[in-house]
Each structure stands twice: as C-alpha cells, then as structure tokens.
C-alpha cells in the first residue's frame, strides 16, 4: 500500500520535492512496524532495503564495537543501498518499538538513476548523511575488505 503523501512531506529528505515526485516515491515506500530488539540490517549482507525512521530508537554498530544511535523522525538507515558494493556496513537494531518507511534498495537506486532532478535532490540529502557517518563507513569498509 503506497505511503500517505502528507507523511512524506513532513520528512526532511523529501521536503524540496514536487508533488509528482512525492507521488512517485510514495508508491515505492511502505510502512513497517519494528519491534524492540529487531535487527533491520546486518553487516555484510546485501543492502536490500533502505529505511526512513518514523518513530522509535535505533542503534547502528560496526565491527570493532563503534556505534551511534538514531532517535529522530526522518533519520535514515541503509544508505549502503546506493553505495558500492551494495552491502550493509553496519548492523541496525531497534532499541524500542517503532515504525519506519521501507523501500527496496534496487527500486531506490533505479529511482535515483532514472529521474535526474529527483535523484539530484535526494542525493544531496543522502550525501549529508554519508558525510556525517563517513568515519564509521570508511572503517567498516576497510574491516569488510580484510
């Protein structure tokens, strides 16, 4: 079932998008309920799903024990879906019950590649997130390579 457009409008990642773009994205996203202790992504697995947090609290941890936590609506999980080699760098576990919007990784990549203007806007937001997490991602990539 497509996600409500008003829900998407309230999220920072989609705030600059037109209603047509939002309609296109809403068809690809679906809401998923997450239980306390549930694992959303596992380090080393193929990055099959991209998540946007609607509610709840999450921890992403990496090899070596480094971790950060997500507590805000609009936080993103699974940016590896658009980064080669398309494998999750970290493991994400839900610290509380919550809800997230999920999108298949291949659909997300296809969306970014097929619609240049939409892809550009989304990549700007995603680049910020990747930049914030760069120290974790780089170390995780090195650790996975060894």
């Amino acid at each position: 079932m497509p996600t409500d457009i008003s829900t998407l409008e309230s999220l920072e990642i989609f705030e600059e998008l037109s209603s047509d773009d939002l309609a296109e994205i809403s068809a690809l996203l679906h809401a998923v309920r997450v239980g306390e202790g549930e694992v959303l992504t596992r380090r080393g697995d193929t990055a099959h799903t991209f998540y946007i947090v609607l509610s709840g609290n999450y921890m992403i941890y990496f090899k070596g024990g480094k971790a950060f936590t997500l507590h805000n609506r609009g936080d993103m999980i699974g940016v590896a879906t658009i980064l080669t080699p398309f494998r999750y760098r970290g493991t994400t576990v839900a610290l509380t019950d919550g809800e997230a919007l999920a999108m298949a990784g291949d659909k997300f990549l296809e969306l970014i590649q097929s619609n240049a203007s939409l892809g550009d806007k989304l990549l700007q937001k995603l680049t910020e997130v990747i930049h914030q997490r760069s120290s974790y991602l780089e170390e995780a990539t090195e650790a996975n390579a060894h």
Partner: protein
Amino acid sequence: MTGIEAISAHNGWSIAIVGISIVFSGLVLLSLTISQLHKALDIWERRGAYWERFRRRGPETTETAPERECIYLPPNVKESARQCRLLVEHLGQPFPLPKLLEFSDRCGLDHPHSTINELLLARVIIPDGEGFYLWNDNVEFTS
C-alpha cells in the same frame, strides 16, 4: 484431664495466640526488611557520594565539586541502571555500546534495548565522539 479441657486449663489458647503473634510479627518484620533492603544497598553503594556531600557541608571545605545533575528514572529503569553501571565497570571506559547491550542481555536484564535507550536519552550514557560511550557519573537518579 486431656484434650480441649487440658488446653483451656493450662492457658493453651493464650499461649497459642502469643505464639502465632510472635511468628507473624517476625514474618512481617522480615518482609519489610527485605522490601527496603535495596535502599540500604543503594546508600552503601553511593557511600562515596554521600561522604563527599557530607564533607562539602563542612565549614573548612573550599573545593567545589562538579555540579551533579538530577535525573528522573522510573523505578525499574533505576534498578537496571544500577546493574548497567556494574557492567560498565567490568567493560571499562569508554565502552562499546553493543557490548553493553550483549552483556545486559546475557545477564537477564529486563528489556535491555529499551533500558539502554532510556539511559541514552537521559544522558546517563553519553557518546565520546569516537563511536564509543561513557557513563556520566555526574548524574543522580531520582524515582
């Protein structure tokens, strides 16, 4: 003279009532002691902080200790926080958050994920900026 008659004649009923009262009073006293034991243990564990507070009140003390933040925690989380503190002592600081979660789970802590989340939100557990975490000793729990 035997049976009920003998019991009545030798104050048996009174003795029985006194006996029952003593036993029940003992049990009530014991249960009250056990129910309040955690407070006594809490004071014992925080004896350093209490002693420090007592010293600060003294007229000759001039050094100022860091401001302690008072944080409200529900009673069950407060108890879990106490257990987490012991685990952090074992892990050393800074500590990896996933390890604390793993140890809490193994030790049978009730709802380890949400408890650690509560502690993160209450800033009892704080990030060190390098991906590891520290226990904030400048907080005092109230419930």
